[in-house]
């Protein structure tokens, strides 16, 4: 027990020191990378010097405070007219929960902090800096904006589902049937298009809201402030500061996709 506490303290102290160090060299991105490795500020490094690089930080220490909370998912799926299809095979999902060992399968073998294996993590499109889905799309129906958001043109998509094969995160959904048949007429958001059958869709980081200076709807819906959204290219942004101070991981960074959703565990 005592040992555990000491360990906790040491870890916390270490993080605090690291944070101090991180903040003190915030101006020089390279130094931060030395401290934290590739997991921090990769996107705003030399690989993509864009002025704006949107990213999300999921603070799992906050996310797990409320059990069975689905606020972010419910808000997103309502605003984006995502149908609730019962059959698991035909589900459409933009943001949902997966147990840690499924979201981070390469971590499943070792000893994990007790309870972590089955802890539900929030997963969504990673808006990769080097997105395989964009690379493979034969019609440019999915593409990356200069600010890093991976977009989807559901009017151009031919429904070949090559992007679904290419996405290493299972983030893409295909409309196996007409979603309008499942949507409730009364709750349809007229501000956002509904889809036809036979096209692929996914989270778009609420590009339609961001462009009007608003936060993504999932971020707004989270009462625990576990979802943070901001510009990683700006070292003074909330997300940059958060990542500079805390240890964060990304899903499957070894694939070189440079995902832009970070998890504080």
């Amino acid at each position, binding site marked *: 027990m005592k040992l555990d506490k000491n360990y906790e303290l040491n870890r916390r102290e270490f993080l605090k020191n690291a944070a101090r160090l991180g903040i003190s060299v915030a101006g020089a991105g390279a130094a931060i990378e030395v401290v934290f490795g590739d997991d921090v500020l990769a996107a705003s490094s030399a690989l993509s010097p864009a002025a704006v690089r949107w990213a999300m930080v999921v603070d799992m220490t906050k996310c797990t405070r409320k059990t069975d909370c689905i606020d972010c998912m419910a808000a997103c799926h309502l605003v984006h007219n995502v149908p609730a299809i019962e059959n698991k095979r035909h589900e459409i999902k933009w943001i949902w929960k997966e147990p840690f060992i*499924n979201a981070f399968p*390469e971590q499943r073998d070792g000893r994990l902090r007790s309870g972590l294996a089955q802890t539900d993590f929030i997963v969504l499109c990673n808006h990769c800096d080097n997105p395989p889905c964009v690379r493979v799309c034969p*019609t440019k129906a999915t593409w990356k904006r200069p600010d890093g958001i991976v977009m989807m043109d559901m009017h151009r998509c031919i429904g070949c589902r090559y992007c679904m094969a290419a996405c290493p995160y299972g983030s893409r959904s*295909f409309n196996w049937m007409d979603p309008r048949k499942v949507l409730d007429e009364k709750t349809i958001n007229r501000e956002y298009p509904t889809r036809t059958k*036979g096209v692929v869709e996914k989270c778009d980081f609420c590009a339609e809201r961001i462009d009007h200076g608003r936060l993504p709807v999932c971020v707004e819906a989270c009462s625990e402030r576990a979802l943070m959204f901001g510009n990683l290219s700006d070292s003074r942004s909330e997300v940059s500061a958060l990542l500079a101070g805390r240890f964060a991981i990304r899903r499957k960074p070894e694939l070189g996709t440079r995902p832009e959703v970070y998890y504080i565990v």
Partner: protein
Amino acid sequence: MFEKARSGGRKYWTLVFILIALALAGVFFYLRQLSEGLVITGMGRDVSWGFYISQFTFLVGIAASAVMVVLPYYLHDFKAFGKITILGEFLAISAVSMCILFIFVDMGQPFRIFNVFLHPTPNSMMFWDTVALMGYLLINLFIAWATLGAERKGVAPPAWSKPLIYLSIPWAVSIHTVTAFLYAGIPGRHLWLTAIMAARFLASAFASGPALLILLCMVVRRHTRFDPGREPIQALAKIVAYAMTANLFFIGLEFFTAYYSGIPGHRHSLEYLFFGLDGRYGLVPFMWTSIGLAVLALALLINPSTRHNERWLATGAAAVFFSTWLDKGLGLVVGGFIPTPFESITEYTPTVAELIISLGVWSLGFLILTLLYKITVSVREEASR
């Protein structure tokens, strides 16, 4: 020359009508798919490509294999293949037609398919595959039609056909290489992420295509007055034996890398396909049938005494065809999706509708083949009269 396809005996018309009926059954179910969506198939968000794309992948191999008769005949002046190059080219035409149809029936929005040309995307392997397949179809149509037309008139084929024939040789290799690149360049699908994918595709293509051609030559000889002869069939048998050996060797290489390296992700799909993973064994019997047929085929085709016996040869060729079909037309594509990116397992079973649509496409392909072979045979029968 089309008029040759309009007259024929009773057997010919029976076959044509059976194929038309099966194709119509496929069309009927396709219309249902068109109105309800791909929900009527067994595919889902985890296994998002299934039977259609598997058939496409397998048939690209059949199409590419025409090069195995064209190359020896035109580059090495191997005269024995002179009589059957046209059969190989027409087989390629029918196979590419099926490939295009299988892609088409797999589309969620088939009427938007021209977006591939309206918005050409060179970084997409699918764009290149479309270009390669369309080009291959056109090249073979021109070559086959010109050479058969010349044969009918008893003159030499037109001069422009020669460079086109030479072009068709690397082009055949390219269609299957690019098809392999569809899979081999995707991060996170470990079964597909292998540098020898294109080599494996070509080896299995050069086994399965000529194996089918052997069987077709035997059918043609039995039911018409055109005899392709014993020598080309025996030569094809040797090609099949070598290619199938290479194919099996390549599969062994995949096992070595996956198991000796011990990297879990590289092992999982093979484990699912051949031994079952997490208590799921859906494809295990099919994969071992494929291996069993491959071993049987090699025993029959490598051993000269069975290879020279045409009955055993036919058995061996059929074994090669079904072995590679199970491996490529079933296991390879579906296996790539299992386990999912979340390391969970969703199994895939095609639905009846999906199978009938697939059968419809195969029938349409064989209808094209039947008509083209009928024309060829009639021209040859006329010449020998």
